[in-house]
């Protein structure tokens, strides 16, 4: 089973904190992988917030393929960083030869393009990279987006941390929001893309649980947007629905909950906004989720949120102090990294709640 965690802070924090958050929950996951998405970057990426960074794991040939594509489109590299790896013997990691984090300036033709055009270009480029790298598994392009970095690998999270030197905090590799998860897709094939968090155009999602409406979600999402691909994990559906509701339909975040876990009909009948809620149940019926799950999501504006399935079949807890809010599957993870917080203010959300954390770390509880 997955365990998921997210940390949002007023200060730039290092991934070691995410590793610690997840390490204490290791009995709940199976130590089969580690994946994280960092957003609102500090350290060496801090001055490039407007420019897209490519997060990729690949072979030498993969680098060449990717760079050719990027060059052809007209992207200009402005920064490159590769983590120093600690390839000591005995580590449980299924490492790729290269881990690439490169920041690019937009092609000349796009310098004055509006934001929307740039965002479509970034998605198209990532999809192109993915398609080109896929045939011989020459590489995995996880994200290509401003102010976002993704790292995923197969193996024991502790060893993955050691391999990438992530246990030792430093100021070079930091972010204000980090989401993390420690399990590969052990239900199905072990595929690097299948590990959450998943990222699409500034939206990130990770989930603890199952989505028994996976087939319905998948069949519907495939036709909704060119970016809804892969489906290596049933949890990807959570991300695509978030992206669709918030970005494509332009609806407020609160309606995400109404789409994935709609209210029962008798409750809708009592509501003033029943027309809208029924419309959602009708037109977005195939985006409803069932089965036990907790979702953590992150929006392009760094808003972090969590919500659960309609029967509250999966745990989640939110703990906080003055400068940090932590969302975690299990409270032991929060105890580890915020030992001195007032645990009486911890929040255990119910099945009809969305807990939202904005950039001032204000925690809001929205009743569906």
């Amino acid at each position, binding site marked *: 089973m997955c365990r998921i965690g997210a940390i949002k802070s007023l200060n730039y924090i290092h991934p070691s904190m995410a590793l610690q958050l997840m390490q204490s929950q290791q009995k709940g996951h199976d130590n089969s992988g580690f994946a994280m998405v960092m957003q609102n970057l500090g350290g060496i990426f801090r001055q490039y917030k407007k420019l897209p960074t490519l997060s990729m794991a690949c072979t030498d040939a993969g680098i060449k393929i990717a760079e050719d594509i990027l060059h052809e489109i007209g992207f200009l590299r402005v920064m490159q960083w590769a983590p120093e790896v600690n390839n000591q013997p005995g580590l449980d990691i299924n490492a790729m030869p290269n881990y690439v984090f490169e920041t690019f300036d937009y092609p000349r033709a796009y310098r004055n393009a509006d934001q929307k055009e740039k965002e479509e270009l970034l998605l198209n480029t990532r999809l192109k990279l993915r398609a080109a790298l896929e045939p011989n598994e020459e590489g995995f392009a996880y994200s290509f987006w401003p102010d976002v970095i993704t790292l995923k690998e197969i193996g024991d999270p502790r060893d993955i941390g050691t391999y990438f030197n992530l246990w030792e905090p430093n100021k070079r590799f930091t972010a204000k929001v980090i989401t993390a998860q420690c399990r590969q897709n052990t239900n199905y094939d072990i595929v690097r893309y299948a590990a959450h968090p998943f990222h699409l155009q500034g939206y990130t999602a990770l989930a603890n649980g199952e989505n*028994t409406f996976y*087939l319905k979600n998948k069949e*519907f999402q495939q*036709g*909704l947007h060119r970016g809804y691909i892969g489906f290596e994990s049933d949890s990807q559906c959570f991300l695509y629905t978030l992206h669709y509701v918030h970005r494509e339909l332009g*609806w407020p975040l609160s309606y995400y909950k109404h789409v994935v876990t709609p209210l029962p009909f008798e409750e809708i009948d009592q509501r003033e906004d029943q027309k809208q809620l029924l*419309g959602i149940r009708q*037109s977005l019926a195939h985006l409803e989720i*069932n*089965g036990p799950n907790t979702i953590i999501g992150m929006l392009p504006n760094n808003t972090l949120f969590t919500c659960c399935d309609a029967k509250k079949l999966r745990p989640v807890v939110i703990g906080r102090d003055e400068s940090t809010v932590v969302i975690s599957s299990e409270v032991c993870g929060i105890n580890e990294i915020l030992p001195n917080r007032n645990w009486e203010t911890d929040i255990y959300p119910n099945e009809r709640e969305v807990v939202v954390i904005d950039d001032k770390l204000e925690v809001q509880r929205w009743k569906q």
Partner: protein
Amino acid sequence: METMRLNDVTANDLPWKIKYDASRCTMCGSCVATCSFKAILPKVERRRMVFSEGNFPEPKQRFSAVPVIRQAKSIKNYCRGCGMCEKICPNDAIKPERNPDTRHPIITRCLGGDSIKRGGRKNLEGSTRTLDKIRVGRISQMTDPSLDAQRHTFDLLAPFGRILPPKKLPFHPDQDQQLVTTDLTPPVNWIYPVIIGDMSIGALSWRMWEGVAMATAYLNEECGMPVRMCSGEGGVPVRLLKSKYLKYLILQIASGHFGWNRIVKTMPYMIEDPAGILIKIGQGAKPGDGGLLMAQKVAEHIQAIRGVPKADLLSPPNHQGLYSIEESVQKMFLSFNAAFKFRVPVAIKVAASATSVSVFNNLVRDPYNIVGGFFLDGIDGGTGAAHEVSLDHTGHPIVSKLRDCYLAAVTQGRQGQIPLWAAGGLGKTGDLAADAFKMICLGANGVFTGKLILQMAGCVGNDQGRCNACNTGLCPAGITTQEPQLAHRLDPEKVAQNIVNYYLAMDQEFKKLMAPIGNSSLPVGRADALVATDHAVAERLQIQHVC
């Protein structure tokens, strides 16, 4: 003694033979009185008895005239095997027995020079039903737990009405980040996923129809189950049209337009909108054929409701004036939408056919978004009257066709936009919840059922040729007749009670099917929840094959 000719009809030529035990018979006459087909009659037999009274054989004979019950030997008044005689006989002295050597299909045509007509379902024996080769095989366990059918809540409703694509929803956030509606949306009613199928008030006795209507009202008002009943083509009593219960009724219009004169005239007096309009193009039991109500069933009240004389009432096979799907969309749908001021969903019912997907595609791609439901009726559906050759030999099974339509919608990303409702032999084994649930997993939003409702009321007909006499107006159960003395055999309140109880049981069974797969709302299109024990079925329906 009468001369017996080779081609005279005898009991051995008929589909059922009466087995009569004179020694048990008390001559009460109940069986003869109850046989609505006049297939048995009292008769006096001449009996000869030879006996000897002394110590030595001295045969003597005695003749006596004995009253007995005999079977009518006629292709008009022949035994249908309904078993009413057996049911009523206090001494178990009489019963019909199936005659495997029947020559009925031949002699009826030879003597009548006309095609055979009957009611019921397809009677040709098939192999195991497709739905019985499918199981709900994806059971939630461990990390993905089953739900609790008794304690958890479940949403068991299905949409009836046109569903807009998400991007066409006229919803926009206001200043408070609340979605507000900025334009009209098509009417959609959320209803129970099992509709009481379209059976007209001419096909059914007024007491049966009343019982069904009563059950519908009770399910809605007392049980909180929004079950809808379809009127069938034949009009609706004005009293019901003007009542608040109209909201539970889906009005059907078919090619004969029977009853619509009255409905249209009553529209200004309606205090509720009907639940929907169903335009019937075709019927699964007799595809390519119109409705048929034999003159013997066109009683006075039926003449009044339909505005017709006492004559065979045949709906044409086509809606006159509709030559294309586009026309049907524009003319009929717009007319009906406009008539009820776009408050009432309008759906279409067609017979399953090799071409159903094309029809569905045309409707689902219509740019006006006005077709509010695609009712697909398969070959195993029932009918009140049809030519036997149509019943047995024309039509298309429902399961694969429903699946084809759903997958056609999936391919276009339009699943759910026109709700799919399926019928045609569902619940044939008496187990409608299981059949409906499997159809829902294959892509149906809901199902509709007719024949099973009759069976709940007491219909004794079956698919092995028992009774099937709905067309004659002589229904022994008082269900499909307009003869007062037969209709009075049926207690409408008992009919309503049976239907209500069946629905309550079915509702529980739905939950017992949803809980193991961990779903709290209907798993429309969740074919991954199904497995098939037959490879061909699995392949055809794109579900997992298991063995």
